[in-house]
């Protein structure tokens, strides 16, 4: 398709010589991290080792709406539509901290019996079930880096990242470190997967999804594999030791 190639070539030339296209931000993990795998069906299930692109994009959308939504009340739908597209289209790469310890903690839970009909208002009490579940909490040693792009809105993106202080489950704090932010022409880190890798399913927004599909308040429903896609992610970490209570991963 010569026409298309030509177009992209022109765009490249129009960019200033020092155009930055990728942004790398650095966070210091503050607390233990937990983010249930999105394909989990159990109440507890295993945690992802690092935040996924979906979780990161949702965090970006949250701070975007909180910080700028109020100024766009009259044209909210139009505005969020355009903002959503550039956030959705970001390619997100994650550089895990040096060491990760996955803790498996036991929890005693009492929960409603899912097989009983909760809608039966004549019942004085709802049946409860006792359960014992494991939940994973990840202790991270070192910094977490996120590289995303290509985008021509890096200043806005950096501003949004600076407003985020947790990923995954609430209370899983990360401290943004402003002095480490970098804007570069190319992706800052690239893992050589021939050395080795650990697979983590990485969920992301689908290429054609819309804001109303992923908005939990909207009646539009998101479909798996269309609006939320789960691809294998290759993390540059290796499992170095494991026991019934913990796994330790080290970065290559």
């Amino acid at each position: 398709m010569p026409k298309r190639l030509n177009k992209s070539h022109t765009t490249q030339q129009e960019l200033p010589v020092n155009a930055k296209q990728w942004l790398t931000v650095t966070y210091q993990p503050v607390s233990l991290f937990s983010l249930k795998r999105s394909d989990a069906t159990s109440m507890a299930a295993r945690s992802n080792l690092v935040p996924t692109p979906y979780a990161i994009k949702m965090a970006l959308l949250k701070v975007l709406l909180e910080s700028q939504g109020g100024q766009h009340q009259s044209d909210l739908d139009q505005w969020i539509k355009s903002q959503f597209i550039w956030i959705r289209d970001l390619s997100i790469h994650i550089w895990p901290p040096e060491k990760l310890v996955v803790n498996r903690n036991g929890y005693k839970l009492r929960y409603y019996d899912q097989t009983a009909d909760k809608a039966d208002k004549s019942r004085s009490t709802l049946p409860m079930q006792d359960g014992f579940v494991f939940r994973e909490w990840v202790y991270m040693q070192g910094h977490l880096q996120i590289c995303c792009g290509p985008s021509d809105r890096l200043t806005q993106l950096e501003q949004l990242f600076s407003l985020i202080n947790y990923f995954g489950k609430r209370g899983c704090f990360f401290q943004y470190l402003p002095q480490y932010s970098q804007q570069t022409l190319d992706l800052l880190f690239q893992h050589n997967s021939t050395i080795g890798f650990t697979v983590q399913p990485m969920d992301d927004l689908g290429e054609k999804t819309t804001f109303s599909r992923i908005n939990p308040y909207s009646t539009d429903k998101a479909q798996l594999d269309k609006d939320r896609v789960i691809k294998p992610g290759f993390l540059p970490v290796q499992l170095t030791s494991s026991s019934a209570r913990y796994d330790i991963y080290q970065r290559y």
Partner: protein
Amino acid sequence: MTNTQFPAYSISISGSLSWQLHALNNEGNEGNQSLTRRYYIIQKGMNEPESVNGVSGDMLKHIQAEHLHRIAIESGLNLSEGGKQFNPDRIGYDIDKNIGIFTEKDTDLTTKTAKVIQRCSISDLEGFMVTEKKGQTLKRESVIEFGAVVGLPTLVKTQSYFHAKYGTDNPTPYNVQVSSGLYATVLNIEAFRIGYNPHNFNYSIDTVERKKRLDALLKSVLYTYLQPNGAKRNTNLPHPDHFEGVITVSTRRCPAPMISALEASYNRQIHSLANTLNNLNGADTILCFDFENIAEFAAQIETLIERAQPWESDNAEAVE
């Protein structure tokens, strides 16, 4: 620093806390042995994991909510029936029991959320979720969040103690794990979200009410560290005997910085971050309130209650 007021967008606490002889959080039992919560962490330069005692953030949140409930009743804050009863569903209890929260005209989430915020301080501050079949989910995220409390390796000790229960028939022997030592704790309050209705980007209660709720929240945080009401406290009442760290407050749209006390230089790092953020966003964006012991911590909370105003808009500026 003068005694002027300042807007509080976000408030964080990072500190190291000493609890003696507590069994605040347990992971279950094996036979007649109760097992405490443990976390495995790995420190810089180490290859082997270290097993430390800890208390989950959920437990701290529960302790804090219990204190807030009492404070809210005492200070006459608006509470729903569920809120008054400290029902875990909060406003969900009222909705379930049809205690006239919504009229037939209240169909959209904006109006419903506004009514919930006005009606129930605990639902506003601690969050809630009400799911309806075929209906829209009404939910709110908590204004306050706790990270897990993690023991500092080598400075925390857990031991098992023998006890016996004497009933009328058989005496039952059992063992309880009790821990003492220094712990790293972090929490964050998104003060700007007190009374905030995310559906219309406005506040559903006035500034006076928001300030009352912020004060109640700060007081509940103080009480959480003064009196940690977790598990097994009837026989293993924890002794909080030291707390040092730093409270950071952001006066502009920027999260208040926090670093875990698992890092030995956490205090220095927080002050350095505060300087960087002040250079980037303007002087006094971040205010730091250091404390060296529990009494100083209480005094700093008192300072915040006297001087911190809930943050409202992007135009709000620090007035140091």
